[in-house]
């Protein structure tokens, strides 16, 4: 019986400490120290929440930059994050990639296969990847210029302004946040 008392006592004691006090205290402290991040890094436009900064969004309109293929249903659904889980010798994987290449070639004037980065036609691990490589953004400029009338130079400048380099110069590769970039395009289109 002594052992049962210990089993229950230690379980409840630690539950109060790390099951309740720890998460609640960390939430309280985070809300005070980092309120913006702790509440989901909300980006607002005219007072309305238009994005959570790190979560990708789905763009399939010609006038906006497109993100990576997403395997969630519908695409970029944060309530059901998932990769495609397709294996390297699965027919479907190759079919999907070829279809995406064909779509990019069809919609982008002057684009050739050897300009398309693999990441632009391969779906991400979460289905919510907000980022694309710089090359992936640059190759989309002719399509967006044609659809919006914004000059290619302006768009190239816009992309260059939005390049996020490696953190502390070490961690990660240069990339562009598609949500952020499209907000800038949106502002140009709706001055």
């Amino acid at each position, binding site marked *: 019986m002594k*052992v049962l008392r*210990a089993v229950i006592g230690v*379980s409840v*004691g*630690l*539950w109060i400490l*790390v*099951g309740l006090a*720890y*998460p609640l205290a*960390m*939430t309280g402290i*985070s*809300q005070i120290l*980092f309120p913006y*991040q*702790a509440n989901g*890094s909300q980006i607002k436009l005219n007072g309305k*929440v*238009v*994005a*959570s900064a*790190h*979560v*990708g*969004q789905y763009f399939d309109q010609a006038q906006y930059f497109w993100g*990576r293929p997403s395997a969630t249903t519908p695409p970029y659904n*944060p*309530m059901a*994050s998932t*990769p*495609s*889980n*397709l*294996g*390297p*010798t*699965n*027919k479907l994987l*190759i079919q999907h*990639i070829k279809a995406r*290449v064909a779509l990019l070639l069809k919609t982008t004037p002057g684009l050739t*296969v*050897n*300009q398309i*980065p*693999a*990441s632009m*036609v*391969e779906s*991400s*691990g*979460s289905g919510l*990847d907000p980022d694309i*490589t710089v090359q992936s953004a640059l190759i989309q400029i002719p399509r967006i210029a044609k659809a919006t009338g914004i000059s290619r130079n302006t768009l190239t400048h816009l992309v260059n302004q939005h390049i996020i380099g490696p*953190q502390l110069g*070490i961690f*990660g*590769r240069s990339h562009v946040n598609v949500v952020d970039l*499209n907000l800038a395009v949106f502002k140009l289109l709706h001055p």
Partner: protein
Amino acid sequence: MSIQTILTWAVVIAVFLVTLKPLGTYIVRVFTFQPTILDRPLKPIENFIFRVIGVDRESDMSAKEYSLALILTNFAWAVGAYILLRLQGQLPFNPQHFGAVNPQLAFNTATSFTTNTNWQAYSGENTMSYFSQFAVLSYLQFVTPATGGAAGIAFLRTLSGRKLGNFFVDLTLMTTRLLLPLSIIVTLILVAQGIPEALSPYLHVHSIVGQTQVVPRGPIASWEAIEHLGQNGGGYTNANSANPLESPTAITNVVLSIAMGLLPVAFFYAFGVITGRRRLGWTLIGVAGVLYLVMLALLYFPEAAGNPIINAIGLHTHANMVGKETRFGVGGTSIFETSTMAFTTGSVASAHDSFLPISSIAFYLAMFLNMVFGGKGVGLLNMLMFVIITVFLIGLMVGRTPEFLGKKIEAKEVSLASVAFLIHPLLILAGTALAVATPAGMAGVFNPGPHGLSEIIYGFTSGAANNGSAFGGLGAALPFYEIAIGIVMVIGRYGSIIAMLFIGQSLLQKKAVPESAGTMHTDTVLFGGVLLGSIVILNALTFFPIMALGPIAEQYLMMAHHLF
């Protein structure tokens, strides 16, 4: 290979090398009850718990009592977790109004988190309330690694000639002295980088092109911290640490990769300190370290070179980015996945199912061996099991009585070590065979061809190794897998721990043999090499056939551009 990749890897490895000594020494001080810096704030809390349960800080247990206390406590958690998950609809902190978790899933989740496997047959973001996440599952992510750590500590005490100690005390100290303080620090770094930590309901977003998104929130950062510091690996969401909500930047990816390894690596050093055989400690660190680097290379280089079938399309880049995130790249992904597999965390920053067959062998290797540092405490136990088997093998070869740490290794220890070793392949191979032989098992296969077999092998290996990662395509939510892998997790977890505790007790009862000219030294590079060789040969003999049918077959077919 970019300079960023090299520097990222260098930072992670450097942090392990810098912290292993202070952290390893600290672990020994805590568990031999010497004064440490955190005594003042934490002792009153611990003493309160010890008073309530009527246990002295420095009391002792036999291997039988220790095992029983461990099993009973774990059983109580599993039952408690099951009940709380079933009652989810009636409990507080449930702004999304999620209902009760169904019985099979509640069973699978309760066993999975209690055995520290954290295999998940559900998606957290659309199944679990905030209460279930932090007060049930996150709680288990503290106390179950503390259980493994306690068992490791108890074994180390016996090796140093001390009694086993008291399970309840070790469990408490493991939680308060190691996991809690580190979790607080890591949580704050993660929140600063952009991981949510809130109790308010999910965020509704209306994008500039009219898409509506519901973005999960909750105490995610505090979850991520203990998920990794405890080598748990249960994701807050389905995509786990690939999800930008769980790992929004390259820095969080690195911080999590480091968090997983801090304690397992330090435990290897603690072994050297507590036994007074630091050179042997370094030998074991060397053996595990070599395997860690082999895994890193085995993952990175094939993925960077890409899939030959996709490369034939003639794209701008070749690296395999299927299931990987842009902000991590192949380099950042590789160091995370190496850590998560080596330290048996089982969280993922990418889709393991979509790795090339040759690189996926690194995943299997880590789970087959289960001692490339491994989970804290448990990984060291597995390493010492191989040491005992190796000492025995060498003894047979050169005709000497095998000795380890001045104690004779005899029939009893070798039998127990063999049992601990054989449970693992038995669970994996029998489980896989059962799945392949039954329609219920085959129904869970997602990818066709040899890759489908790989998915099944991976599932059972992950369960037996208490890793918890998956080839995500496998239908883990099917009743067959929920129950079969549930059982495998339980046997895999407790079988080897208990065998090792009894080895420890048996060694403790033996008289020390003085060193002589005939003593075989275990703290040499030569022994390290033989140990590594024994580990590789034993596991290759056990697992090569099944690897040949899965990933190796698929690799050759992929090189021949064969699709399924």
